[in-house]
């Protein structure tokens, strides 16, 4: 429980500015793949009361949530505003809440049903992906969704790693791998697919151990998730990871590590869609290499995420890759410190 105490203490010290209601936290259009075709991914982050767990070491999304519980009308206002921003003819919709879409305390059944009903009616929408913690993935909740939404539906869960030890010691996620696989099985029975988010390099891991963890995690998660999205740990304000970064106790992962994991993971699991959006790539607070090659490597990762072709990585080279290889080899033997900024 000590991580929970620490995370709570850090959260308690943050000054949170309130954002206007009636607007989602963020809306943007990215790229994704549907039936092997590239398709615009319309992402909405709703401003809800936030994640009920709220104890993870790397997560700062809580500061995006609303200060007060959001009424049905508030949330529908957010929904309407969001959908008015959509400019594409065919989209998949990704719903985030900085918490769990299936948690009634964030989004009531009534609201959820209304949103899904409207999305079902919206011809542009080809698929919906909604993020949630596994404990809210119950047969009842899913039935509620599938009853009103007949198109492809996917639950996305932040598994982070297949290692229960790392999830507990380094992330403080509060659930186990088997919680995730049960939820995935429940979803499967309802005809709902699963997407798993993994986390490259949670705090305390050396670069080499982090890579090892991700390669394992992809292999162990692939049977339960058609899509695996690997987040590259970045420094979000007001988190334990942020505190560690400021104290020079933590360095975000190298982009080379992400490339290595994606190549390995894809080779072993060719039928799984493996992707990564290198948020904050190239900055000190995001995944980075030497500064010279970051842009190119991040772009290759983005291209791979759409094409699933590891060939995009084959011509990537920078002198810093040699350094990265040494770091991967030796950082484990620094027993807690990172070797290179």
């Amino acid at each position, binding site marked *: 429980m*000590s*991580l929970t*105490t*620490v995370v709570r203490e850090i959260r308690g010290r943050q000054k949170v500015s309130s954002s206007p209601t009636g607007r989602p936290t963020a809306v943007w259009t990215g790229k994704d793949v549907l039936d092997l075709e590239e398709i615009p991914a319309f992402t909405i982050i709703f401003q809800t009361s936030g994640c009920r767990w709220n104890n993870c070491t790397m997560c700062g999304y809580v500061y995006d949530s609303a200060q007060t519980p959001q009424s049905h009308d508030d949330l529908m206002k957010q929904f309407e505003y969001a959908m008015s921003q959509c400019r594409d003819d065919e989209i998949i919709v990704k719903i985030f809440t900085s918490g769990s879409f299936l948690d009634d305390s964030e989004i009531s059944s009534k609201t959820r049903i209304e949103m899904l009903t409207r999305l079902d009616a919206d011809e542009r929408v080809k698929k919906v992906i909604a993020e949630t913690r596994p404990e809210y993935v119950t047969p009842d909740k899913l039935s509620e969704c599938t009853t009103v939404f007949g198109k492809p539906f996917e639950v996305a869960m932040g598994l982070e790693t297949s*290692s229960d*030890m*790392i999830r507990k*010691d*380094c992330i403080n996620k509060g659930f186990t791998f088997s919680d995730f696989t049960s939820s995935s099985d429940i979803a499967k029975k309802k005809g709902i697919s699963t997407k798993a988010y993994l986390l490259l390099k949670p705090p*305390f*891991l*050396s670069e*080499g*151990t982090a890579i*090892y*963890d991700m390669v394992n995690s992809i292999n162990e998660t692939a049977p339960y998730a058609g899509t695996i999205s690997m987040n590259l740990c970045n420094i979000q304000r007001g988190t334990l990871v942020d505190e*560690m970064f400021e*104290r*020079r*106790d*933590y360095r975000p992962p190298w982009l080379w590590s992400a490339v290595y994991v994606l190549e390995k993971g894809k080779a072993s699991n060719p039928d799984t869609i493996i992707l990564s959006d290198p948020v904050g790539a190239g900055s000190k607070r995001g995944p980075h290499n030497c500064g010279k090659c970051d842009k190119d490597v991040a772009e290759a990762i983005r291209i791979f995420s759409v094409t699933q072709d590891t060939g995009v990585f084959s011509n990537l080279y920078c*002198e810093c890759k*040699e*350094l990265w290889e*040494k*770091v991967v*080899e*030796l950082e*484990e*033997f*620094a*027993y*807690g*410190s*990172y*070797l*290179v900024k």
Partner: protein
Amino acid sequence: MTNIFEVTHRDAAARIGKLSLDGGLSTPAIIQPWKKDGFIVDSGSLWGKTAIPEKTQEKIIILPHKSAPLHTREEIVKGLADSVSSDETLLNTDELEAHTGLVVHPLYQQLPESDLYVLGAAKQLENNPRAFVDSIINIRENTKSGSILYVPSLSKPENLAMIVYIGADLVDDTLPVIKGYQDIYLTTSGEFHLDRMHEFPCPCDVCSAAVPEKLLKLPKKQRAELLSRHNSFALSSELSAVREQVRAGSLREYVERQCRTRPWLTAVLRLLDSEYSFIEKRTPVFRSATLYANTSESMNRVEIKRFAERVLERYTPPDLDTLVLLPCSAKKPYSVSLSHQKFINALGKYRKFVHEVIITSPMGIVPRELELMYPAAHYDTPVTGDWDAEERAWVGGCLKSYLQKNKYTNIIAHVEGAYREICESVEEETGIGFVYTVDDGVLARTSLNNLKDAVFGLDNGKKRSGDETKLDIMRVAADYQFGKGAGRMLVPGDGIVRAPYPKYQLFSEKKQLATLIPQYGTLALTIEGGMMLRDWQGYSVTIGDFIPRSTILAPGVIEADPQIRPNDEVIVKGDKIFGVGRAAMSGWEMKESARGVAVELRHSKKIG
């Protein structure tokens, strides 16, 4: 915990040891725990792949760990440590019968007994002198001296001397390798970026085969490998240099210069000096090398502080009315210098009536009887005539404390310049009046005449004969070595000193009791001398029911005076023998060590 490590040389916290695994490894050493065929094998992080090698007899296995960075909060570090100790998959490591190593967090340490301790997150101790000093002292002070300390991922040629000085036994070349991959060239005087270098100041195969410009044009991989090779070479070459300094007893002098490469290293030296007892309890009572007091930190050396402390606490001045304060001389012992010969001539027949004390930086004050005692005759210091404020305060403080404790009727100060200014400030602080005898240079005829005049007519006061003075030299040496009062016990009423100065020998009824070793100024006892001190409480080592040969090993020691320091003269008491010898390690270390020579026995006789 097994006995695989033996310390063979000690110089304060630094040590040279022998790791008796698979042919043996001499420490301090550079290891590579990532190589599975080495002596020290890491079984890995519990968050990653852990593998305990199968053949473990000839290896030290670093047990699986969860290592946290330096500033990780205490409750998190403890939580991780608890989860490791309760991990069921690790329970069978007890059955390994292997030599084991534990990773220890630098700030929040848990130190169960182990062969080896790995200082976790040590890399972050660079530029963090306080945490560096505290973490290592805490490990050293709370684990057995026979355990090995591995400081990983911190060593570079510039800081290796300090890492050894504070007591590390094992280091690695992680940073030299990594720096090579960052185009950084390492030397003992710091880091250089390859693209700003014009020539290589190193004779290694990499440097002699190329110039920086040429190296820069090589493909990255090749360049990095070459630079890493040089950097690792520079580290191992520095290690050899440092090991030689330990053997020669001159590591302190080396560290005083080497620490100037980085402010944090200089800070480490100062912080370590403030941890007096940690260093003192490991510092030999004498060294064979000259003590060079070249820096402002030299004044804080254990040898200097210890001498001053013992002059105050263990030294008893002769019962005389007049004190003559004299300046030090470059030549040692002072009394053989030209200047002191002139002072002595000036005192003439009145010398018997005065007590001579020499004022000196950085020693403070040296009573004439102790002028041979290490390090009074074994130091050298730059002399410019200018004394800085710290020197003045230190020397003045020594003189003041001495005069507050020891009373004289007359004080004659035959000093000039800074010496005189120090005397004047002591006069002012204590209210004790001095007579100054120097006009224009301490050796000027008028000055010497003034000295002569000042002592003229003292012959109606207390005096000390030449023979008595010689006995006093033996007495104060015994007091200095064994504690106040030991001299009276050792030197009997009928004692007599033979042989010319300084090779004094103490006799009683034709039996020799002790010899003054001119090289160090210390007394070496004979069996008879030891017998005189058999009821003395300090500096004795009790051994068990066996007859030792020339050495007594630590496991044979039952009891040892914790005051004993390396090179101390000790009395050995056993069921079957009584003997005298020289300590090879500190008393506290004799008691806890499982290996190594505790005492070099000089003389012994069977008893019982």
